[in-house]
């Protein structure tokens, strides 16, 4: 029998002989591993979800936002620097359109509103914008049509709404077309429903509940005719740095440096993701505490096992086992015990993720599997080494005499 196989078989036989004890000891590791794996799975799912949401909003986008919203290091900036009363104007958009690297330039005015259809009233975000907005953000209509230049110029009392608000107000997207929505007691005809973009979770904007209105139509809700955001779509991803530079030069002609921010979509994505990664790491660290508890359980049971098998250790030493052989044997048993918990934890997590996936984009990836098995092996080694050392350090004569 191969030495390693023999040690593994011995470990498995010993653990199988005490099935209930093995199961109960592994429970600690099971709970620890499943908490860590599930938190990673939720973290991965969340990251993918945010990325997909951002991707669906269009690519190569650069935003101009009022105030300094991002710090130099890239994180969201709070405090006075982020607060501003700056608003942009149409002539800024016209100036920015002169930049060669900008394919599309479009401004938007946003406002929180209550939209009413019949007896139903829902909170929403109004987007007073231009038809080019839909090009910049690759937004299509699933029902009806999007508003165009003519609607803008004629100040048509029309709106395009997101699929979620359509369902809330009218029951479905197809029923919404031609119906009237009242905003501040003024009626607007729904001419189109946009495709679903996702989002709206975790405190982010619920894009599918937005109401889009031609910018000029929205003057009634935006009397000073100002813009809160300007979107620019770069002609090429590689030209984004140059575009940002030219935007800054253009904007600095009219605004102070701190009055506006030029932000890439990926910058926002990175910042949002780094916040979630940090939050997730903290949660994983908390989950890891239960692994320590599980490890202490393993250590405890391994000490019991060593005490129960002192005579056996003596016999093994008498027939030629070295200290190293005994150490390796008990360490292997601790690792196998821990891995049993790790595997069970992984199975439990996979089951939970399969169920949760119907409501939340959780995902178990290779990292989660590696973490589960790596961490449980590590716990087995760390918490198994002391009992194993105790076994190895037993004097052969004391061990064989033990009754």
């Amino acid at each position, binding site marked *: *029998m191969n030495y390693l196989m023999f040690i593994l078989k011995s470990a498995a036989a010993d653990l199988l002989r005490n099935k209930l004890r093995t199961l109960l000891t592994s429970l600690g590791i099971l709970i620890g591993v499943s908490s860590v794996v599930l938190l990673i799975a939720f973290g991965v799912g969340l990251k993918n979800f945010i990325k997909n949401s951002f991707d669906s909003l269009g690519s190569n986008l650069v935003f101009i936002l009022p105030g300094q919203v991002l710090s130099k290091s890239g994180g969201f900036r709070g405090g006075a620097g982020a607060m501003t009363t700056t608003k942009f104007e149409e002539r800024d958009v016209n100036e920015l359109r002169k930049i060669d690297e900008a394919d599309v330039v479009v401004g938007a005015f946003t406002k929180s509103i209550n939209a009413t259809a019949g007896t139903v009233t829902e909170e929403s975000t109004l987007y007073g914008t231009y038809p080019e907005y839909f090009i910049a953000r690759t937004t299509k209509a699933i029902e009806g049509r999007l508003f165009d230049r003519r609607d803008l110029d004629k100040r048509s009392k029309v709106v395009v709404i997101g699929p979620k608000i359509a369902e809330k107000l009218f029951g479905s997207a197809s029923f919404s077309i031609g119906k009237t929505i009242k905003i501040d007691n003024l009626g607007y005809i729904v001419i189109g429903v946009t495709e679903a973009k996702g989002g709206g979770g975790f405190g982010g904007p619920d894009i599918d509940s937005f109401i889009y209105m031609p910018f000029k139509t929205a003057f009634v809700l935006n009397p000073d005719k100002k813009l809160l955001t300007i979107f620019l779509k770069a002609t090429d991803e590689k030209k984004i740095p140059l575009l940002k530079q030219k935007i800054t030069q253009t904007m600095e002609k009219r605004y102070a440096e701190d009055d506006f921010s030029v932000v890439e979509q990926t910058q926002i994505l990175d910042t949002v993701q780094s916040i979630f990664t940090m939050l997730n790491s903290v949660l994983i660290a908390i989950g890891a505490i239960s692994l320590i508890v599980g490890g202490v359980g393993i250590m405890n049971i391994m000490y019991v096992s060593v005490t129960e098998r002192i*005579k056996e250790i003596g016999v*093994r030493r008498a027939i030629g*086992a070295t*200290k190293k052989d005994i150490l390796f044997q008990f360490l292997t048993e601790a690792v196998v015990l821990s891995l049993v918990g790790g595997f069970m934890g992984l199975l439990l997590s996979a089951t939970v993720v399969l169920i949760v996936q119907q409501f939340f984009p959780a995902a178990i990836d290779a990292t989660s599997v590696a973490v589960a098995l790596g961490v449980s092996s590590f716990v087995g080694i760390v918490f198994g080494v002391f009992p194993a050392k105790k076994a190895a350090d037993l004097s052969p004569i004391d061990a064989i005499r033990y009754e």
Partner: protein
Amino acid sequence: MSSMIKLSGVWKEYRIDNEIVFTALKNINLTIKNGEYCSIIGPSGCGKSTLMHLIGLLDQPSRGTISINDRNIETYSDSELSHLRNEFVGFVFQQFNLIPKLTILENVMLPSVYSKKNESVAKKKALELLERFGIASKAYSYPNKISGGQQQRVAIARALIMQPQLILADEPTGNLDTASGQAILALIEDLHKKDGMTVVVVTHDMNIAKRAKRKINILDGTII
């Protein structure tokens, strides 16, 4: 015959806080030669088991030296002593001391696992030994499924797997009925007669001790 084991001025003392509280062996001078069949006899507590443990390299003397094949083992490390036990000595215990979770075959092969010997060679040798002792049919059974006499045969097979120079049997019939005990003694004697092995049997039973060619009497830690 050349000397296989030589104990010179060996003392075994037990101390608490550096103070000797019990002396188990006093100035033992003993030589066991290659191919000898000896018995160590004495009443309970006389020190015969302590002597066996020293000869079997399980323990170290407090004073004096032990030489194996003219090599003083005083400076041997724990690992070197383990290897020597593995290759030089075959133990047969009163309580058989088989590992319950291993099969009969695995129990016999166990010393060869620690010496990292070729698996198939060791397995062939183990099966031959089980065949020789009439328990080959039980090779894949577990120790709790066979009788005491059969368990002691397994223990003897385990003691022989590494082809040691010395068989050390500590009260080998102590846990057996008379018939099984006689059969085991006959088997041990065969190892001496047919295989020419050096055999040391530790016993308190004069009838067993008398069967050996040389009797070593111990009383109160001294050879008399």
